[in-house]
């Protein structure tokens, strides 16, 4: 016990004395948590639209006003022809073209049917998709409003209408911060824990102090615990800052579920993660190697964790990788507890899996650690 106490004392002294690393551990993740959710927002705004209006009627002008006042579109200008408009798209000045045919108003009123043409710049697929959908839905609404004006309420309508009402559970206002902040916090914890732990151990290898430790009566498990415990504590502290200071004060996110349960999961997750860091350190001789290996995996961990994209829509092989990624489970649990208020029963399986990860990664690392010395 005394040995571990001495090792912890040494480790904390070294960490708090490292003026470059300290802000990297405590400040950088919090700053990232402030910045990243703002950027990682799928809500598409400011779509530039170019309008080719061949009709110049009251109806067409009403339609354009409706579109612009929706808040999602920005008028890039009126163009006399489709060719002029596509020129704008080519120069990246417009994302969408709406072409209104000549006689739009007349045909609509007389025949109750008219066609509009929308052309979408699909270089940015997400923007194109969502922009096109927004525009269609605005036009539909406009159409419905027109009908309502024209048709007197009758006792029975010849064309039955199915009206769809949606209600968004767990995140009623579809607030992206609510969705992204817990996920990004999970990623930041992963990066701090995984990198720092691996680098710290490899540093001792690199400068050779590990050799000095190896000739003392310090046991392997003393040394490993002396390395894991500090970063476990740091992980918890950074998470707490992120959740309470940034999450609650800045984003106003208050977990719907049990905070205790969240910390229980975090504790086990950190053990698994630090085992991963330890494992990397046993395979690297220099900090550069450790950094490169860690970077490779953390990249995959982030991209395939369901943070940005839904795992359910991934192809089977990608799903398999996502399921072998510990970060996936942490992000899921974060969102389930924070947004949905899930209880232990709902995340039993997650606990089991992350527990297996913890045992497997640490077991592998410790076995490998013994062999190399």
């Amino acid at each position, binding site marked *: 016990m005394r040995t571990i106490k001495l090792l912890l004392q040494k480790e904390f*002294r070294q960490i708090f004395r490292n003026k470059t690393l300290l802000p990297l551990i405590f400040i950088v993740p919090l700053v990232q948590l402030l910045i990243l959710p703002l950027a990682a927002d799928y809500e598409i705004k400011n779509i530039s639209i170019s309008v080719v209006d061949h009709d110049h009627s009251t109806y067409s002008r009403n339609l354009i006003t409706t579109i612009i006042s929706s808040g999602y579109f920005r008028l890039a200008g009126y163009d006399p022809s489709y060719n002029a408009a596509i020129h704008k798209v080519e120069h990246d000045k417009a994302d969408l073209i709406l072409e209104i045919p000549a006689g739009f108003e007349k045909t609509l009123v007389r025949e109750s049917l008219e066609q509009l043409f929308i052309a979408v710049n699909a270089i940015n697929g997400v923007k194109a998709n969502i922009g096109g959908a927004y525009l269609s839905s605005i036009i539909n609404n406009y159409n419905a409003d027109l009908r309502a004006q024209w048709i007197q309420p009758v006792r029975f309508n010849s064309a039955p209408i199915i009206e769809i009402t949606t209600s968004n559970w767990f995140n009623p206002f579809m607030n992206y911060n609510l969705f992204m902040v817990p996920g990004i916090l999970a990623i930041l914890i992963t990066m701090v824990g995984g990198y720092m732990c691996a680098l710290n151990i490899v540093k001792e290898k690199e400068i*050779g102090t590990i050799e000095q430790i190896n000739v003392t*009566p310090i046991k392997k498990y003393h040394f490993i615990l002396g390395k894991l415990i500090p970063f476990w504590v740091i992980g918890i502290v950074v998470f707490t800052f992120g959740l309470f200071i940034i999450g609650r004060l800045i984003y106003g996110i208050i977990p719907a579920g049990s905070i205790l349960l969240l910390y229980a999961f975090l504790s086990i997750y950190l053990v698994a993660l630090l085992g991963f860091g330890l494992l990397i350190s046993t395979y690297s001789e220099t900090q550069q190697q450790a950094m490169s290996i860690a970077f490779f995996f953390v990249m995959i961990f982030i991209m395939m964790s369901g943070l940005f994209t839904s795992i359910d829509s991934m192809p089977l092989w990608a799903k398999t990788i996502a399921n072998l990624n510990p970060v996936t489970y942490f992000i899921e649990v974060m969102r389930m507890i924070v947004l949905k208020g899930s209880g232990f029963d709902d995340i039993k399986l997650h606990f089991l899996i992350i527990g297996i990860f913890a045992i497997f990664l640490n077991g592998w690392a410790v076995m490998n650690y013994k062999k190399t010395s």
Partner: protein
Amino acid sequence: MTTTVIKTENLTKRFGDFIAVDKISFEVHPGEIFGFLGANGAGKTTAMRMLCGLSIPSNGFATVAGYDVYKETEQIKKSIGYMSQKFSLYEDLTVTENIHFFGGIYGLSDKQIKEKSTELIQKLELEDQTKKLVKTLPLGWKQKLAFSVAIIHQPQIVFLDEPTGGVDPVTRRQFWDLIYDAADKGITVFVTTHYMDEAEYCHRVSIMVDGSIKALDSPSALKKQFSADSMDKVFYELARGAKRSDN
């Protein structure tokens, strides 16, 4: 205690086809200053690592402080001190913190550590430096401090791996005064060096060439044997035939 503190018989270490240490046999007596010489790549460090319990021998037999190097490495580690040229202390800890850490690791009580560190700091005249980080100390002081920390727990043997590399002549003399002090207290000193004047300070020296010990005796006897007037010539005589040296 037996009269040998280190004993090896045909101690061998192979890395694949390469025989780093080839059947070395020698004995070191308590209180002795034993110089372990050899050109770069001769296998000194590998041999020393085996004796410290850092590396398991491929063949042969050895005991350190009466403990077997195969099975009793943990006991060996409690009985030895170790210091190397490159690293020994934590550079980002202060003088006192290093003393406290290593003293504690070797099981000294807080009271013992306090006594030892006052004594040690006085002896090294480091009174004004105790709160400074080790990395701010000049190399010579660092090495003297590292040696003192390596013997803080009064080990039976202290292993020194090129302890005076890069240190100025005056500091080297002071360093050897510390070594003599330690030997007087009964600590056996096992030291590797490239400085032949230091070899003269040793009670006995062994010279390794290409993994085996080519000569082992007191410096005066070796000089007589090779009819040389300095250890420098003795070393040159033996090591110039080496195939593995990198110079």
